[in-house]
């Protein structure tokens, strides 16, 4: 209980009605290395900025050592930040930058005084020059920049500036260090070195680190706990092993590490059906024939001979690439509905070979689908036109103009077109997950309506597309009674 240093409770943040962080709750233990991980725009930096005090939550509370600091200004928080672009003061040299926080600081001067009313008052004083010099020099030593105190910050390399930024934050002995993608601007080699150094500092100092990154590898390497975020919501909180081995949903599986994500149905407890093949698994408690997502990590699939008794399914090898410590094999499964599977194994196979695949029951990770059908509210605009998501979709209906309706569309009935103008409404691809034989996209309209779309063609995240829906694919129901809601 007591070792929680930061507690975030039901925090929301919106910028001019656009929600960025949605009802986040999270507690961080003292001394922990927590990473907020997610794609850009997932709200991780906003969450960090709320902990630092630069932003105030629209609602919710943030506790620091059990005290409410939701509206406390940043300079009163015993928390320091390493900024993404370092934000080193250009008018001060390295020494001046690191000393900045120390010069602001006041400490009890050791001579308690008694005022007229008899209260003892701890008189505060600024640090002396000698104290500041000593602390700054220690900080410089910690980041291996002992002789750089007199240098101007602009004359340092990116890696050195990064170290100064870290020293500038740590010299104040904060209880929590916040790091906002601190290694983003460094090259790969430097990044790897800094990762190890940061981990070492964390171990030595024993203070809490809250780290923000979009780099899943960085998160897996460094953290005690990973908080995976998407769209302002927490997807999963867990140790790196847990998040990697037991992803909470298809998004987490796709974002962290490589994975095969397939659609299937739960036939019964301990039995999953993927494209007509039944496999043994260790999950239970799903509804009968419930549609689910199945995730299998490439390294959990073993290539066996077709006649081997372990063989669960046969597949044609499409490609085989040597990756140093393993071969990356893509294979197309046999059957009516064929899926493309990625396998990491240390056997070399030839393109065109037919191989058998074996997967242990506990390597099938089964999870509920986040949405089964697109459901939207709209209104009949005129004859055979429904108005929803700020767009006018042609439809087939007998309902009269102005009727409030509830519209359902299957994922694979939503068409995407390259030219925004050709669609009924324009939208941006915000998520793309390959499901073995097709892509599942989440596309967001300009007014923040999300559509789930199953599609054979490939788009990238951030692409603009047009959304088109065939009139007869819109399943329209009149909203009968408002009391229902």
């Amino acid at each position, binding site marked *: 209980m007591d070792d929680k240093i930061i507690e975030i409770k039901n925090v929301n943040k919106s910028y001019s009605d656009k929600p960025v962080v949605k009802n986040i709750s999270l507690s961080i233990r003292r001394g922990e290395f927590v990473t907020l991980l997610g794609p850009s725009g997932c709200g991780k930096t906003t969450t960090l900025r709320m902990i*630092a*005090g*630069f932003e105030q939550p629209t609602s919710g509370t943030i506790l620091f050592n059990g005290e409410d600091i939701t509206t406390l*200004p*940043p*300079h009163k928080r015993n*928390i*320091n*930040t390493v*900024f993404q*672009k370092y*934000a*080193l*003061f*250009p*008018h001060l040299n390295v020494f001046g930058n690191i000393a*900045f*926080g120390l010069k*602001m*600081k006041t400490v009890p001067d050791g001579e308690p005084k008694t005022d007229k009313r008899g209260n003892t008052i701890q008189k505060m004083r600024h640090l002396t020059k000698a104290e500041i010099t000593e602390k700054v020099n220690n900080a410089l030593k910690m980041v291996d920049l002992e002789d750089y105190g007199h*240098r*101007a910050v*602009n*004359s340092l390399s990116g890696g050195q500036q990064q170290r100064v930024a870290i020293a*500038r*934050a740590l010299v*104040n002995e904060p209880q929590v260090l916040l790091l906002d993608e601190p290694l983003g601007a460094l090259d790969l080699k430097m990044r790897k070195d800094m990762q190890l150094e940061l981990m070492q500092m964390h171990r030595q100092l024993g203070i809490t680190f809250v780290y923000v990154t979009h780099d899943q590898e960085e998160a897996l390497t460094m953290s005690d706990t990973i908080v995976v975020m998407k769209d302002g919501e927490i997807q999963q909180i867990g140790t790196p092993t847990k998040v990697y081995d037991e992803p909470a949903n298809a998004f987490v599986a796709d974002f962290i590490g490589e994975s095969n994500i397939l659609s299937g149905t739960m036939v019964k407890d301990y039995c999953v059906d993927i494209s007509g093949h039944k496999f043994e698994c260790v999950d239970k408690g799903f509804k009968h024939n419930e549609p689910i997502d199945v995730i299998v990590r490439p390294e959990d699939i073993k290539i066996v001979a077709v006649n081997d008794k372990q063989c669960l399914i046969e597949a044609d090898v499409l490609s085989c690439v040597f990756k140093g410590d393993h071969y990356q094999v893509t294979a197309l499964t046999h059957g009516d509905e064929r899926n493309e599977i990625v396998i990491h194994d240390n056997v070399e196979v030839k393109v065109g070979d037919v191989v058998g695949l074996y997967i242990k029951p506990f390597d099938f990770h089964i999870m509920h689908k986040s949405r089964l059908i697109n459901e939207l509210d709209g209104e009949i605009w005129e004859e055979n036109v429904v108005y929803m998501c700020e767009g006018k979709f042609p439809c087939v209906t007998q309902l009269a103009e102005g009727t409030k309706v509830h519209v359902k569309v299957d994922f694979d009935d939503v068409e995407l077109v390259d030219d925004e103008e050709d669609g009924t409404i324009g939208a941006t691809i915000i998520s793309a997950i390959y499901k073995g034989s097709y892509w599942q996209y989440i596309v967001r309209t300009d007014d923040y309506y999300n559509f789930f779309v199953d599609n054979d063609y490939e788009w990238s995240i951030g692409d603009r597309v047009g959304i088109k829906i065939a009139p007869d694919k819109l399943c329209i129901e009149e909203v009968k009674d408002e009391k229902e809601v």
Partner: protein
Amino acid sequence: MKRKFRFRLTRRAFAYPYMIFLLLFVVVPLVIILINAFLDENSKLTFANFVEFFSDAGGGLTVLGNSLIIGLVTTLICLVIGYPCAYFLAKYHASSRVFVLMFILPMWVNFLIRTLSTKAIFMALNVKLGMGTVMFGMVYNYLPYMILPLHTTLVSIDHSYIEAAEDLGADKMAVFLKTILPLSLPGIVSGITMTFIPAISTFAISEILSGSKIFLFGDAINMHFSKTTNSFGVGSVMSLVMLVLVVVANVIVNLTSKDEEATSVL
């Protein structure tokens, strides 16, 4: 083979019209002033003009001293009024476009008309014309030149510096004194240049707003070139002194801003 002259439209060609303009209206007048400074009324070579000015026979040096003091005071007042103004305009940037415009708007009106109307207002209010009204006119006239460069610099200060300072324990006052003020130094320097240099060479403002009682250097030069006095020689010497002063001021300003860069590079 005959070489034919061909006019080629290179990038350099675009500079010719301005070069010609510069030659005709800047270089030639300067040369004329230089020559005039060494000529007496009968167009004979003489140093009398210099002697007259530097011996302060016609009170020229005193006027120059007054001008410099008034210029300095004007610049100081402009800075004191202009900085907070630019600061708040920059802070509430998004909503302040209109307000920035309000400060620039007076610059669109001819300064003589502005100054004459200021005088009319003072007269109507029964304010006695004198040093106070002259200072008011000067500050009113040059304030936009102070605010504009300050505003530009303040707006371009990266907000992350302010956040970093807050993060390191600086309260609002400390954030201002330790980050915003030093970071806006280039703006202060260019604001001072843009105010001080025109302020020491200004004319008409002092004459109009003091009821012809206070003469500044610009007015003095203007007087020397008028038909009645017709002492072009001394006027030219004064113009040259002015020119030297402006050059010196510019050099000093450049040196200080160079120092800025130098310390940040070292």
